[in-house]
């Protein structure tokens, strides 16, 4: 009985160590717009293109996760970019908010989220999603 309890306890607390085992994701190429995840997902503030660029910079500087939103509306959360393990207000990604990019990287899917470790920004077309004529500057209008 005592041995069973010890084994159960060890099993219950084994997962933190397992989480640190190096893992390999799926090699992918993803194209889409760099967005701040909060606004683009919740729709609280129109979260795309030029209309939302300023807000996207605020959110990225504020540490909200940045993602690539592809043409099908799927989000790829960026956790690493070009040899830098920084994903909170990372200068490399804050600088390209709203840009249309194609990236090569490693994909992990877990519990309803696609996570992307970007090895290389293969193409950067700059900002091509011109939404300000229709929406103005979102939020606040300025």
């Amino acid at each position, binding site marked *: 009985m005592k041995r069973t309890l010890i084994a159960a306890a060890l099993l219950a607390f084994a997962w933190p160590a397992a989480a640190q085992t190096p893992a390999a994701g799926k090699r992918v190429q993803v194209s889409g717009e760099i967005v701040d995840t*909060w606004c683009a997902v919740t729709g609280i503030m129109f979260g795309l293109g030029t209309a939302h660029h*300023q807000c996207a*910079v605020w959110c990225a*500087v504020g540490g909200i996760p940045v993602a690539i939103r592809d043409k099908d*509306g799927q989000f790829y959360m960026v956790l690493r970019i070009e040899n830098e*393990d920084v994903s909170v207000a990372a200068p490399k990604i804050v600088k390209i908010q709203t840009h249309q990019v194609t990236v090569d990287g490693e994909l*992990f899917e877990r519990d309803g989220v*696609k996570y992307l470790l970007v090895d290389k920004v293969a193409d950067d077309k700059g900002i091509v999603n011109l939404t300000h004529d229709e929406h103005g500057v979102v939020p606040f209008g300025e």
Partner: protein
Amino acid sequence: MGFCLALSAVSASAPTTAAEPWNIPHEKQVVLKGRVTDALCHLKGRCASDCGGGKRQLGLVLADGAFRLVAKSNIDFAGAIADLIGYCGREIEADGLLIENPAVTLFFVQGIRTDASAPFTPAERFKTEWEARHGKAQEWWRADPEANRLIAEDGPLGIKGLAPKPRP
């Protein structure tokens, strides 16, 4: 047997949420109980003893093994790293909104505690720490030097020379 009963007792006494609803599609008020972990460590095994020292996105590993990325704090336009980083590797209760959008699942934390009998502490450390660095500001986002530098460089629409239409 006793261990199993103890686990059952823990799961039966789910803490009560006090999270404010925002009427976001797919939102659900929940208290998540889990260990604070950085996402890169959890997924890739690329770990840092301090969870990245505030430079990596953080989440909670729940008892069932699920990982919940914490995307936002109670401060406008700000994430929750400042609220979570002090708990790296520790178990907390996080009160907030779980948004299970079919495209992506996010968690918006509004309060944190480590003692189940204590009230939740509002997830607002970003503002405290920002003000310690930059001084008081009614809207941190309009006063942030880095954000202002980037917006001044490319304009509010992100394209040099492109300006919003004057408001009528």
